[in-house]
C-alpha cells in the first residue's frame, strides 16, 4: 500500500522537510546565540552568508508543505476505492486511528508554514536581517510540529490494510452520530447559514479594512481564524447538502470527488489560501515597529489582507452559487 506514487511523494516531502530542519537546527541555535550584526568578525560574516542559503532552503521546505496538504487530501480521496466500505476520503482516513490526526497535523503545518513564510518574506526585504533570530527560533518550534506530522503520516500509511472494512462518511457526519462533527452537521441550515455569512462578511470586512488603513491587524487575523471555522461548519451543515442535493449527506470530503465535479476544491483552495494570508497578517503585526520594517510590514501585511479579503469573498460567492444552483430546498420562504 505504501508504494503508491502519492504516498511516496508525501512521505518524501515530509521526511525531507524534517531532515532539512533537523540539519538546520544547530545553525539556528548558532544564529540565536551568536548573531551580532554590529560585529565584523569572521564568524558573523559566515553566519550572514549562510543564513541566506538556510532561509532559501527552509522557504522551499515550507512551500512544499503547503502543496503537500492538497496532495494529502487528494490522495485520501483517490484511495477510497481500495477500501471496503470507503466512499470518499473519510473512509480512507478511518482505516486506522492515525488518518484524521495526520490530516489535522498536516493542516496545522500548512498554517504554521504560511506564517513562517510571511515572516521570512519581510525579513528578506530589509537590509539588516531584523527578524533573523525570530525566524530561526520559529524554525526550531516548527521542527517538532513537522516531525509529529511525519510520524503520524508514516504510521497512517504503514497501517493501511486493504482487508480492513472501514466506515463511510455517513456514520461520521450524520446528524444522528456522536462527536463534534456530527453535532456541527446537525445544526439547522438557517442559523448555520447566518453564522457562515456573518463571520465571512466580518472577516472580509476586517481584512479589507486592514489592507486600506493598516490598522486592526490582529483583529483581521482573529477574524480569519473564525472565518475558517465558520466555513467548515457551513460546509458540514448546509453547503454540502445543497451540493449533493440530499438533506442528510453532510460529508465535507465527497464534494472533492469527480462525481461532484471536484467542486470542493473551488471552495477549499480559496478558503485555505485566505486563512493562511489572514493568519500571516497576524504573524507580522508584532514586527511593525521594528525600525527597518516600518514601511515593509504594513505594505506586505496589507497585500496579505487584500488576498484574504478576496479569498473570503470568493468562498462566500462560490457557496452562494452552490446553494442557488441546487434543486434541494432546505429553507422554505
Amino acid at each position, binding site marked *: 500500500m505504501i508504494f503508491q506514487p502519492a504516498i511516496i511523494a508525501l512521505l518524501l516531502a515530509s521526511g525531507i522537510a524534517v531532515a532539512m530542519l533537523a540539519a538546520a537546527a544547530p545553525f539556528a541555535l548558532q544564529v540565536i546565540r551568536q548573531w551580532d550584526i554590529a560585529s*565584523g568578525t569572521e564568524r558573523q*560574516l559566515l553566519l550572514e552568508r549562510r543564513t541566506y542559503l538556510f532561509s532559501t532552503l527552509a522557504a522551499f521546505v515550507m512551500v512544499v508543505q503547503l502543496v503537500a496538504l492538497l496532495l494529502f487530501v487528494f490522495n485520501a480521496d483517490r484511495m477510497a476505492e481500495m477500501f471496503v466500505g470507503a466512499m470518499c476520503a473519510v473512509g480512507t482516513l478511518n482505516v486506522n486511528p492515525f488518518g484524521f490526526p495526520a490530516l489535522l497535523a498536516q493542516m496545522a503545518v500548512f498554517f504554521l508554514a504560511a506564517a513562517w513564510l510571511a515572516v521570512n518574506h519581510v525579513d528578506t526585504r530589509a537590509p539588516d536581517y531584523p527578524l533573523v533570530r525570530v525566524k530561526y527560533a520559529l524554525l526550531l518550534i516548527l521542527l517538532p510540529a513537522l516531525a509529529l506530522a511525519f510520524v503520524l503520516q508514516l504510521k497512517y500509511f504503514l497501517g493501511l490494510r486493504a482487508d480492513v472494512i472501514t466506515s463511510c462518511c455517513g456514520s461520521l457526519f450524520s446528524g444522528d452520530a456522536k462527536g463534534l462533527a456530527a453535532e456541527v452537521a446537525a445544526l439547522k441550515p438557517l442559523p448555520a447559514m447566518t453564522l457562515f455569512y456573518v463571520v465571512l462578511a466580518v472577516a472580509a470586512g476586517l481584512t479589507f479594512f486592514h489592507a486600506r488603513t493598516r490598522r486592526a491587524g490582529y483583529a483581521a487575523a482573529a477574524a480569519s481564524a473564525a472565518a475558517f471555522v465558520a466555513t467548515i461548519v457551513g460546509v458540514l451543515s448546509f453547503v454540502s447538502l445543497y451540493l449533493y442535493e440530499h438533506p442528510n449527506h453532510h460529508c465535507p470530503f465527497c464534494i472533492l470527488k469527480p462525481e461532484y465535479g471536484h467542486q470542493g476544491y473551488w471552495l477549499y483552495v480559496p478558503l485555505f489560501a485566505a486563512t493562511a494570508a489572514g493568519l500571516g497578517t497576524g504573524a507580522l503585526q508584532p514586527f511593525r515597529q521594528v525600525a527597518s520594517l516600518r514601511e515593509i510590514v504594513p505594505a506586505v501585511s496589507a497585500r496579505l489582507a487584500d488576498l484574504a479579503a478576496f479569498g473570503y469573498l470568493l468562498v462566500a460567492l462560490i457557496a452562494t452559487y452552490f446553494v442557488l444552483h441546487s434543486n434541494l430546498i432546505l429553507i422554505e420562504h
Partner: protein
Amino acid sequence: MIELKQIRKAFNQGRPNEYWALNGIDLTIEAQKVTAFRGPSGSGKTTLLTIVGCLARPTSGRVRLAEDEISGLPERFLTDIRRSTFGFVFQQFNLIKGLSALENVMLPAFPTGRPHRELRERSEALLDRLKLAHRREARVEWLSGGEQQRVAIARALVNDPKVLIADEPTANLDTTLSREFMGILEGLHAEGRTVILTSHDPLVVESAAVHRVVSMRDGQLTEG
C-alpha cells in the same frame, strides 16, 4: 566616503593552499577625490578594489558607504548598490564581443528598466563625450585598445554612479593613451565623482589628477 574597518580576505580558507590576500586593512577613502592603490603584484590591490565595489565579500571586517554598512548586505541589496553606486572599468575591459560599442555601453542599464530611448540617448551622449560617437556602431573587437577603454569607461558611467572603480586602467595603453585617460579622470573628478583605481604605472600615481596614493604590500597598507 568609504570606510574600511579591519578588512581581511582569505582565499581557499581551511585548505592547504589557504592564502590571505588582505590582512587587516583600516582605511577611509574620501568622496569626490581620486585615490590610487599602488603596490607590486600580489599586494592585494585588486582584491581590495573588489571588496570596496561589492564584487567580493571580506572574510572579516566591515565596509561602510557613507552611513550604510554594505559588506554584510544580502545579495539582492548588493546588486542594487553595485548597479547604482559603482561603475567598473576592468583591466581587460571585459567588453562583450559581437556587440557594438553602443550596445556594450547600454547593457548595464537594461536591468534598471529605464526607457530604451532614454538609455540610447544617454549612451550616445557618453560616447560622444569620450570622442567615440563615430565608432558607436562598430563591434568592440574592431576597436583599438584606447577606444575599447573609452567604451569601458562609458559603460561604467551609463548608470551615473557616484564611484568609478578602475583596475590597472593604463596597463594596456601606451603613453599617449594613458595621458588621455588621465584627462578623462580629471573630468570625472570635476563632475564630483569619487574615483578609486589601482596602478603601478608612475604616469598614473605621480599624476596631479590623483589626489591620494595608498601603497600596499603583502595585503597590508604601507603608506598613504
